[in-house]
C-alpha cells in the first residue's frame, strides 16, 4: 500500500479515536480539542506531502490557505460553541434553582407561616406550643423517617421534605431538598442521602418563620 494511503488510514483512526474515546466517557469537548490537535498534525503532514510534489507555487499557497482557514475557523467556532453550551447549561440550572426556590417558598414557607398564624391567634392561651401546633397542622402528612408528604402530591417526584421537631426550643423545621437543582457545593451531603442538591431549611418558632438556603 502506498505511504499516503497508510497515512490516511492512521489519521482516520487517530483523529476519530481522539474524539470518540473521551466522548464516550462523557468528555466530548475534550475529545473535540484532541481531534483538532490531531487534525492539525495530519494537515501539516498532508501539506508537506503535497508541497514536496506540487509543481505550481499556486497549489502550495491555496492548500496552505485552505488548511489554515479550516483549523483557525474550526477552533474559533469551537471556542464560541463551548462558551455558548456552558452558558446555556448554567442558565438552565439557574432557572431550575429559581423555580424550585419559589416552589419551596410558596408551599413550605407559606404552610409554616400558617402555623405561626395559628400560634399568634392562640398565643393568649396558656401552654401554646409551636411543635404541637405544627404536628396538628400537618397531621397524617408527617410520615415515617421524618418525611413530610407535600400537600400537592406532584411535588414528590421533584422534592424531598424532611421535618425536625425541636421540643427543647419549641421550634419546628422543614428541610426541603430539590432533586433536580444542583447547587453551590457539589459535595454537600443532603439530609436525604443525595449529594450536591439545593437544600433549604424553614423553621417556625415563637419568634416567627425563618427561611435559609443551606446549599
Amino acid at each position: 500500500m502506498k505511504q499516503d494511503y497508510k497515512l490516511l488510514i492512521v489519521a482516520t483512526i487517530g483523529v476519530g479515536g481522539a474524539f470518540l474515546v473521551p466522548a464516550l466517557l462523557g468528555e466530548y469537548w475534550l475529545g473535540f480539542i484532541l481531534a483538532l490537535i490531531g487534525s492539525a498534525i495530519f494537515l501539516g503532514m498532508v501539506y508537506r506531502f503535497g508541497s514536496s510534489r506540487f509543481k505550481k507555487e499556486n497549489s502550495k499557497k491555496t492548500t496552505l490557505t485552505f488548511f489554515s482557514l479550516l483549523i483557525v475557523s474550526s477552533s474559533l467556532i469551537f471556542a464560541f460553541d463551548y462558551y455558548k453550551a456552558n452558558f446555556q447549561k448554567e442558565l438552565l440550572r439557574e432557572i431550575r434553582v429559581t423555580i424550585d426556590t419559589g416552589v419551596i417558598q410558596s408551599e413550605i414557607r407559606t404552610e409554616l407561616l400558617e402555623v405561626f398564624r395559628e400560634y399568634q391567634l392562640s398565643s393568649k392561651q396558656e401552654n401554646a406550643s409551636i411543635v404541637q401546633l405544627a404536628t396538628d397542622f400537618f397531621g397524617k402528612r408527617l410520615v415515617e423517617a421524618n418525611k413530610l408528604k407535600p400537600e400537592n402530591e406532584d411535588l414528590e417526584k421533584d422534592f424531598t421534605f424532611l421535618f425536625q421537631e425541636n421540643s427543647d426550643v419549641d421550634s419546628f423545621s422543614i428541610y426541603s431538598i430539590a432533586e433536580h437543582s444542583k447547587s453551590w457545593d457539589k459535595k454537600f451531603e443532603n439530609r436525604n442521602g443525595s449529594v450536591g442538591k439545593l437544600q433549604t431549611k424553614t423553621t417556625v418558632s415563637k419568634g416567627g418563620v425563618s427561611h435559609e438556603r443551606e446549599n
Partner: protein
Amino acid sequence: MKEKTNNWLPWLSALLIGIIIAALLTFISSSLSLSRTSAMLIPNSVPSNQLVWISTIESINEFSGENSQSHFYKGALVGITISIILMFVIIPFIYVKGTLQSEDKENPSPLWYVGSAFMLMITILPVIIGSLSIYRYQNVEERSVFSRTQDNMRLELMDVSFTAAEQILELDDISKLSGVSAEILGQLKSSEYQFMLVTNPADSSIAITISSEEIKDFKTTTTIKPYSEEIFTYNRSF
C-alpha cells in the same frame, strides 16, 4: 483575459458543486422526518454545533430530571466522529490528491472537483454559520439578562412579602399597620429595586409592588392578607 477566465472557471464550478451539496444536505436534514439520532448522522460542516446540540439535550434532561438518552447520545457521537473524519482527514486528503493529479493536465481531474467542492464547503460554511450564530446569540444573552432580573425581582418580592406577613401577624393593634410598612421600607433601602407599599387597615392587608429601572414597564405586586385563607396573591404587569 481568456486565460484568467480559464483559471477561475474550475473554481466557480467547484463552488457551484459545493453549494448544491450543501443545499442537498440541508434539504435532507430539514425536510425529511428523521429521528434525532438519524439527523445527527448526517455530516455537518460545523461539528461543534452538533456538540452544542448534545449539550442542550443533556441540560434539558438535567432540568427536567430525565436520564434516558444514552441511545441517542451514542448515535450522535458516532455521527460527529464521521463529520470530524470527513472534514479534517478525508476531504483535505482528496483535495491534495486531486490537485496533484491535475497539475499536468489542461482540465482538472474529477477528483479535484470533488475535493475542491467539499474543501470550499467546509471552509466557507463554518464562517457563515459561525457569524450568524454569534449574531443570534447576542439577542439570547440580552433576553436572559432580562428574565434573570425578573426572577430576582420576584424572589426578592416574595421574601419581603413573607416578612411583611409575619410582622402583621405580630401586631396587637391593626392601627399600627402603617408602622409595619415604614419598617419594611427602611429595610429595603439597600435593595437595587424600587418598592411601593400600600396598606389597607380595613382588611389588614398590604400590597407591595416591585419595579426596576433596568426593565421599564415591568411591575409585579403581591397583596398580603395574613388572616385570609390565601395569604398571598400575585399580580404582574408589563
